[in-house]
């Protein structure tokens, strides 16, 4: 097995304050970032995601422990060496509105070009390929200011590609994007990981998308050890529930979603897959827990989106013609039972 792209041993991150003091954000980090994988770093605000990313990128020194980059201690790298190994996409505000996408991506060739940054034929070819791979070549000659947020993110990813680094680190690349932009960006990163064998690490708040697309998740919390693993493993072994343990917030392992309070009453749901999925969604929102059919529950048989049969434990049945009328029936029924 190939060694990890980044491996940390007993890493301690944080800030050096004046007077020799240290502010430790996180310690005892033993992390492995593997090539050809997308790894998502999840954590609430203040958990120290940015500090970790900045430390791994070499923007700030670690307080302790060691980082190995491509099987070599990171301290052996020169600044140019680092720029050839890790490409970054940041949330930093840029002033690049007045240059073209092509100009921006050609900045990625900086570590390779000479004193005046003159592009050779080979550089131009790599820029073209990067634009193509990031799916932004149709806009190559547009100015950055003319792009949408999603296109700007693609241009930045293309810049990182032109750098030809084995590792790409992205700080919240989906933060300001609309839903299609988020999905496109994540799909692009997956493609780059598998097709170009990149090791990709990104921080995100987008839980759904991370579970859907990441090969590996790093769950970072204040004052607790980092939990790492495949999303499904982390859901099944309860790491997620522990991770999001907070007043009134519950992670539901059966849906992979965060809810404001724990669903209490189980309701049996069966029938047409798509209809029962969305009926389940409506039930969760209203404080019920969709479950397999059982005699002592209220059960819903979803025959079609317009034919939903409710069977109460006492054997009485009602029929609803839409999810809305189903919910209305549920509410009146609840009021009756409370009386």
């Amino acid at each position, binding site marked *: 097995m190939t060694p990890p792209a980044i491996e940390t041993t007993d890493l301690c991150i944080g800030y050096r304050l004046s007077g020799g003091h240290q502010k430790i954000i996180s310690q005892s980090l033993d992390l492995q970032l593997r090539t050809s994988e997308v790894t998502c770093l999840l954590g609430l605000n203040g958990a120290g995601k940015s500090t970790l990313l900045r430390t791994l*990128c070499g*923007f700030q020194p670690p307080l302790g422990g060691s980082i190995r980059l491509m099987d070599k201690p990171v301290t052996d790298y020169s*600044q*140019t060496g*680092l*720029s*050839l190994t*890790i*490409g*970054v996409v*940041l949330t*930093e*505000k*840029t*002033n*690049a*509105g*007045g*240059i*073209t996408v092509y*100009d*921006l991506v050609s*900045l*990625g060739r*900086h*570590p390779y*070009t000479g*004193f*005046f*940054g003159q592009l050779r034929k080979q550089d131009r070819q790599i820029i073209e390929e990067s634009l193509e791979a990031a799916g932004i070549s149709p806009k190559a000659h547009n*100015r*950055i*200011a003319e792009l949408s947020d999603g296109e700007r993110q693609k241009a930045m990813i293309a810049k990182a590609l032109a*750098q030809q680094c084995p590792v790409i680190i992205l700080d919240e690349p989906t933060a300001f994007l609309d839903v299609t932009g988020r999905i496109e960006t994540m799909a692009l990163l997956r493609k780059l990981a598998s097709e170009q064998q990149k090791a990709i690490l990104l921080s995100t708040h987008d839980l759904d998308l991370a579970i859907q697309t990441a090969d590996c998740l790093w769950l970072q919390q204040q004052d607790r050890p980092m939990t790492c693993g495949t999303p499904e493993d982390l859901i099944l072994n309860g790491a997620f529930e522990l991770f999001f343990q907070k007043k009134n917030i519950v992670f539901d392992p059966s849906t992979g979603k965060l809810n404001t309070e724990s669903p209490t009453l189980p309701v049996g749901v069966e029938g047409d897959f798509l209809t029962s999925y969305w009926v389940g969604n409506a039930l969760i929102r209203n404080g019920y827990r969709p479950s397999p059919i059982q005699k002592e529950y209220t059960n819903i048989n979803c025959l079609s989106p317009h034919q939903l049969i409710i069977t109460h434990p006492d054997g009485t049945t009602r029929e609803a013609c839409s999810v809305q009328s189903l919910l209305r029936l549920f509410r009146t029924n609840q009021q009756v039972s409370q009386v």
Partner: protein
Amino acid sequence: MNNPLFYTSLSILLLILFTVSLTYGAVPIPIDQTIDILLGKETDREAWRSIILQARLPQAVTALFAGASLAVSGLLLQTLFRNPLAGPSILGISDGANLGVAIVMLYLGGSLRQLTGQAVSNYMAVILAAFAGACLILGIIIYFSSKVKNNAMLLIIGIMVGYLASSVISILNYYAAADKVRTFVLWGLGNFSGVSAAQLPYFILFSLAGLLFAALLIKPLNALLLGELYAANLGIRIKRTRAFILVCTGLLTAITTAFCGPVSFIGLAVPHIARLMSGSSNHKVLVPVTMLTGSCIALLCNILMIVPGTNLILPLNAVTPFLGAPVIIYVIVNRKNIRHFE
């Protein structure tokens, strides 16, 4: 935009303005005579020869280099501070140079006008004082730039530091001898005619060094458009680059200020004119275009200083705001469409 036609037309414009600067004035001199004089041929009137060679040619060449120097130092500061309103005069750098010159002129007996070629050390003192003053203010700005992340606030600090320098200059003025104050005030109005034919080679040499220095910074300047972290990730050594940019700006501003006085608005406005004309903020285009445009604007100011049909000459700093201020207002009003600083 890398259109050769664009550079050619800009160069032709520069040539026209340069020629007009030589021929037009209180004493109009025909263009064919001007060319003859420049080529060293005989001319109808000997007086014309001395007007051209001793006054107008040094003045036009000074405007050419001073314009390019100020404009390029404005561009460097705007990129470094990531602020469209940065410029040598706004950030107080000109005031720093002023202060240095004031100390030398008012108290150490240095002056540019009365000097001949023999007193090189004397006007070197003025240049060095201007450079030291400019660097002092730059140092203060750099110090605060690490404390204050907000660029608008940093700009205000620059303005405040400029006020402080001006206030010290006022105090120096108040206690200085009257004749020296007059020389200093005249110098402060700005003028491209302050460089004598004997001093010109030095002025050209220093300016060229600064302009060449700026041209060498094109690659890191482009990386800085993305911000310092991105630039560092592209292998740019940030601290060194910052220092280079600031020394380069200090050098260019100091030389120009020492010889021409504190010239306002060219450094602030010309980079915007260059961006609007070229439609790009890529420094590969912007640095040469800013230099050419700066020279053009300075020569234009030099021409506009002459009140037609009279012997009157307006102070340079009375003319530059008429060209500079509208540009800045235009850029601010249309910033949603221009968006170079996004």
